């Protein structure tokens, strides 16, 4: 299989959520969320109640993948920042540490300049957390995986109607 699973532990998850919370406040954003490049939502913060964050995550990753394809065609490695402007809400998307995608949704209460500034700072913090996380996953014994003890029966049980 290509690459190991992305694994998230409580400690890093809490740190990430704190960083997202801080970004939401400092950038006056409506919603901030973090997605891995394969479309899995890692965490979301802000006014997420009426928003389908799972779909947002998948479409964001698709968007980044498609723009990445465009970038390669013109000889760029990637486009690290994307910005979509709407009538009311805007979306700022940036790639963090080549692995995760940070998305900020904001309206007239904020500005592109402010969001860019705050995202830059946040990006460094998130990169540090993810580097630590990756090192930790490499060190941790795999016995901690919920799959090592899974039985065929557990799997069968999922499919009982």
């Amino acid at each position: 299989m290509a690459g190991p699973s992305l694994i998230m532990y409580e400690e890093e998850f809490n740190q990430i959520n704190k960083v997202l919370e801080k970004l939401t406040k400092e950038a006056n954003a409506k919603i901030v969320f973090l997605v891995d490049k394969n479309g899995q939502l890692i965490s979301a913060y802000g006014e997420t109640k009426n928003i389908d964050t799972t779909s947002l995550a998948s479409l964001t990753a698709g968007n980044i993948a498609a723009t990445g394809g465009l970038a390669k065609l013109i000889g760029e490695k990637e486009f690290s920042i994307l910005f979509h402007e709407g009538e009311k809400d805007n979306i700022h998307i940036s790639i963090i540490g080549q692995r995760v995608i940070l998305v900020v949704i904001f309206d007239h209460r904020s500005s592109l300049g402010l969001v860019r500034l705050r995202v830059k700072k946040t990006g460094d913090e998130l990169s540090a957390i993810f580097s630590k996380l990756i090192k930790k996953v490499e060190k941790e014994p795999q016995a901690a995986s919920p799959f090592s003890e899974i039985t065929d029966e557990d799997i069968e049980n999922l499919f009982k109607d």
Partner: protein
Amino acid sequence: MSFINYSSREINCKIVYYGPGLGGKTTNLQYIYDKMSPDTKGKLISLATETERTLFFDFLPLALGDIRGFKTRFQLYTVPGQVFYDASRKLILRGVDGVVFVADSQIERMDANIESLENLKLNLKENGYDFERVPFVMQYNKRDLPNAAELQEMRTILNPKSSPDFEGVATKGIAVFETLKAIAKLVLVEMKRSTAVR
């Protein structure tokens, strides 16, 4: 590549439906979406053209239940089947945990099936996967059509490694859930195997 979150106790896996254009990939997802209860499914996202041809992908998130206290979520994607959308197909395979191949049983689509399967192998390889090792399920779709090829012939040509296979009629839902269950099982078994070996 799955995502395991110990904090929220969730496991996320990605399954991609692959196959030739107009073979029934989107129909599979549409049927699953129609039949699942609202609390276990998310929105079905379809990035399609005006003529309902898939342009980029369809996406359907499903929650299957708990395993050892972990919520098990599957994210189903389809690829655009038309030959010229190859760049998009390659992108969607990124991070895949399991592949369903929806073959079109009509005898005149046999070349398209073969071409698409070869394309799958190539695109998996370019994403760093070995086709022989990726959880894989075959669905021979459109078995109700009069011009359907012989099952044995399709098996020989399209499924030489004897992966789990099903005779389907996606428009009527025949074998749609059997296919989904089979791939979900293979993905979970593979996860178990890969964690046991290390």
